[in-house]
Structure formats: C-alpha cells, structure tokens
C-alpha cells in the first residue's frame, strides 16, 4: 500500500507538491456557489496527473449565521437560496426539520407530501438535464448541449406553472405546502411529461451509441468500488462506482416507500457511468412524477397545518437525496421564534475527495470532464493559471480556452502545452 498523502494541504506556489511533478495547474478559486467554492491544484508530469489537491473555504456566505438572525418563518424563504439549483431539496429538509421540532410531523396529509415530492423530483429532472448538457459541452459535443437545454424548457414550464417560479419553486412551508396542484394543471402537465420522456430516451441513445461522445467519456477517470469505499462519495458519484446507496431507498422520507421506482446503479466507475446514472435517474424521476400526478387525483387532505411561531426546545437532524447526493441539515431550537444554530452540509463536499482520486494518472486533457463529473456548480468566472516551473512563465486561461485546448489535444493527439 502506498503512503497516503493528505489532501486539503495549504499550497500556493506548488513547492509543496510531489517530487516527480514538473508542472502545476491551478483551477479556481472563484466558485460563488453554496459552501463549496474550490481551488484545484493539479500536479503534472508531462501530460499525466501525478496528484491533485484542493483548497476550499473561499466564499463562505454566512447563510447559517444569517438564519440565526431571522425567524423560522422567514428562514423558509432564505433556505432555498443556499443553492442555486437544488433549492427545493434544501427547503424540503428544512421543512421536515421544523415539522419534527414543532411536533406536527404526523398531521401532515398525504396530499401535501405528494406535492412536496413532485417538487423535489421535478427539480432532480431539470438539474440532471442541465448537468449532462454542460458535460457534453465540456467534452466538445455542443449539439447535445443545445438539444438537452431546449428540452429542459418543458420541465421548467411545468415547474413555473405549478409553483409560480422557474428555479425557485418554494412550494413547501412548515406544516404542509403553499399551493395545490389542481386537476386541470395535472392534466396539462401529463402529456408534456410523456413528451419529455421520449426526448430523454433520445438523449440516452446519443450517450450510449454516438461514438464521438462515448470515446471521450469511456474509461476516463475511473473510480473503482474499493477506491470509492475509501473516499466515501455520495449520490450519483457513488452509484456509478457500484455503491447502491440512496437516501430515498435506505431511509425513506415523505412517501418514497409508497411509489414504484428502481435504484440506478452502474459498476464501471468512469465518467460515462456517472452520466448514464444521471440520465437513467431522469427517466426514473419522470415516471415518478407521472405516478405522483395519478395518485394526487385520488388523495384528499388538508394542505397546511398551523405551526406556531415559537418552536419548542429540541434538536433534530434530517437528510434527503439532493440531485448531487446526500443533503444533511441539523437544527437546534431554543424555544424562541429563531433557531439557536443551524447547520447545512451540502452534498458536493463529500464528493470532492473521490473526484481528486479520480484524477490520479489521467491526462490533463481529460480534466474538464472529470472536474465536471461530480456536478460542482462551477461559475463562469472559473479561471486556470498554468505555470511552467523551469521558466516561471505564467499563462492565464479561462474555462472556455482551457476546454478548447483540451479538446484539441485529445482530438489531434497533440501535446497540451
């Protein structure tokens, strides 16, 4: 067994790197996302990655502290802003925490729970479609980006019609949901869901059969099952490495145990497998959405239970399956109308170590795809600085240039530098 070099080391000029590396690449650190803005440091020998490292914690927005200064009711609308795209899941976990602390968990009707689930699944669909579109863009296959994002508008329209907003549905409240899904809207949404299923099946066909994308993704960044067990990824990253773990199956919340759905799991562990996990999950979520709409017709119940402003003392931890993995919230209530402490652990943090492991021994030209593989919500301000250690020459590339260079290097078998 090789000696384990700890990750998360402080390292600014590359002098701390492994001895046989001759180039150091810095990616980051501006990722104004949730809690995980990351600065990647990649040590290279020639074209191969010797080791990758990371520094995090550049952009703490203090959302947890801000929550301590607001009431539980106000926080219901603040918590979806924790993440740009998985807002409904964050709100779902928060709402379940407050339900439990206020003691109204058992009174929430089935109808309210079904509407909550619909919101979460619709979000999973649009998040996954967005992700594999960007992955295709990074791999140099822009046609699929355009096709998938065009088709994504269908689910965005459904979300907008049902909740009043495209990416921030905010349907949930402590004690139930804000809005109903009436029969007319359900009937309107059903044919659109059928249409989207056909389109996602077409995307899947492209990913499986089109040689220009499969050659780019197959056997790239392999994370074997044993490595996955050591680095503990979660969500689709783990499921692509043969670890069949999903919070919805293992500890069912809401009504996930009363709906028919399959756990998607692939044993290969490469980037293609993570992609196919997400594409298959999209199809799975789409059929779950249809089931939920069918069940809503026969289910009646009160939408909102009254929750008092002051939450009694207590602590509770809840978790849910976000599109990227496991999302954990922990709250301490002190009897007033404000939380004493609130902790959010978003899923990408657990996937970083596995992604670093994935990079070992890979080509530098594969980096854009591998970095994208765990769905890190990179911002457009992402920059790369290349430093030649011998000459001290610096080169700053933005993400576009980096991707273009990588694609060229891969396509024509040319050196990266």
């Amino acid at each position, binding site marked *: 067994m090789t000696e384990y070099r700890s990750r998360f080391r402080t390292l600014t000029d590359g002098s701390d790197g492994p001895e046989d590396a001759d180039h150091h690449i810095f990616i980051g650190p501006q990722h104004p996302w949730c809690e995980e803005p990351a600065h990647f440091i990649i040590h290279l020998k020639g074209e191969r990655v010797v080791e990758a490292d990371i520094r995090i914690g550049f952009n703490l927005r203090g959302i947890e502290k801000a929550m301590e200064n*607001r*009431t539980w*009711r*106000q*926080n*219901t*609308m*603040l918590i979806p802003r924790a993440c740009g795209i998985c807002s409904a899941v964050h709100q779902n976990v928060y709402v379940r925490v407050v339900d439990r602390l206020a003691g109204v968990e058992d009174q929430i009707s089935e109808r309210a729970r079904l509407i909550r689930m619909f919101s979460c699944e619709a979000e999973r669909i649009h998040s996954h479609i967005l992700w594999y579109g960007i992955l295709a863009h990074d791999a140099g296959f822009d046609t699929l980006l355009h096709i998938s994002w065009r088709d994504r508008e269908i689910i965005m329209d459904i979300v*907008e*019609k049902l*909740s*009043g*907003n495209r990416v*921030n549905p*905010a349907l949930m*409240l402590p004690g139930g949901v*804000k*809005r109903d899904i009436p029969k007319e809207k359900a009937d309107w949404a059903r044919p659109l869901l059928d249409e989207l299923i056909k389109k996602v099946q077409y995307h899947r066909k492209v990913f499986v059969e089109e040689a220009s994308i499969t050659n780019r993704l197959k056997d790239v960044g392999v994370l074997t099952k044993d490595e996955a067990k050591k680095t503990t990824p979660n969500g689709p990253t783990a499921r692509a490495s043969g670890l069949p773990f999903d919070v919805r199956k293992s500890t069912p919340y809401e009504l996930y145990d009363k709906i028919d759905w399959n756990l998607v799991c692939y044993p290969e562990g490469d980037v293609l497998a993570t992609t196919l996990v997400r594409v298959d999950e999209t199809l799975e979520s789409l059929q779950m959405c249809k089931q939920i709409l069918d069940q809503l017709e026969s289910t009646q119940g009160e939408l909102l239970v009254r929750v008092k402003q002051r939450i009694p003392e207590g602590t509770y931890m809840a978790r849910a399956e976000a599109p990227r993995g496991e999302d954990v919230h922990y709250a301490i209530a002190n009897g007033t109308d404000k939380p004493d402490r609130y902790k959010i652990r978003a899923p990408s943090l657990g996937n970083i170590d596995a992604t670093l492991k994935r990079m070992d021994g890979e080509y530098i030209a594969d980096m854009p795809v591998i970095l994208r593989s765990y769905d890190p919500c990179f911002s457009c301000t992402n920059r790369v600085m290349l430093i030649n250690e011998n000459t001290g020459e610096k080169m700053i590339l933005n993400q576009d240039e980096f991707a273009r260079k990588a694609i060229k290097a891969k396509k024509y078998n040319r050196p990266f530098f």
Partner: protein
Amino acid sequence: MKKVLVMGGEALKNQAKGPVTKHVLKRIAENPPPEDIRTIPAIIEDRCIMCGTCVNVCPSHCLGMDKENKDNGMIWILRPQCMWCGHCQTYCPKDAIHIDREPSLSNSLFSFNVRQDYDMLVAKGSYKGDTADKKLQELIEEGGKKIKEIEEFRG
C-alpha cells in the same frame, strides 16, 4: 464577382424578411406568463388591518411599517429589495395582498411630487390617516435627496 452576387441575394432576402427578432416578440405575446406567477406584491388598502404579519414574515426586510392604530399608519414595500417569494401573501390573515401578474419593472421615475409616482417606485403599499401622509412626505424627501445626489454625480 460571383460571391458578391450571392451575398447580394442574401441581403435582399433579409431586407424583405424584416427584423429577425420579430417572431420572438410574437411568441412572447402568444405565451403570457402563467396566471399565478409570483412577482412583486401589492397591498389592497380596503382589506388591510395593519396587523404587521407581512412585515414580520418578510425574509428580505423589504416591507416597512409605521403605525399608531388600525386606521392610522402606513406599510410600504421597497421594490428593489423584494425577492418575489410571495411569503407575505401566504401568511396574510385577510387576503389583503395581491400579486401582480405583469409587474412594470422598467418604470422610471421623473418626480417625487405625487403619490402615484411614489407607488411606482415602492410598489403598492397601504396608507391610512395622517401618519401615512407624514411618513410618505419623509420618504419622498429622502428619495428626492437621493435622486438629486445621483443627478449631481452624473453631472
């Protein structure tokens, strides 16, 4: 020569076609926003009882209140601060909050002299009694000063 002619044909075609974005505007006109879309709230004055629930519940602190009693006070909304969550509408006990389907976002402000203009900037609030008049005057003066500053800055 041949290339010029080809491009000339393209140009003539484009002349006859009209603006490229024409069909976009048409599509927007054909597909208006959904009926219950969430935008900036407006308070229906007749129903408002000045209880202050919306002010307490607002997560972005965009609602302000100054009141003495039920018929004497003012609730105002700061339009730029609102994040369109619709929380005030959910918790209002009297259904006094109406959410506009088509908010006029690009309204510019020319003077601070009339109440209507103020409504345009701060969205529709609830104004009752003398307290409201006094407070409104204060806010208008404050806003006027800011506008003046901006104008001075622009030169």
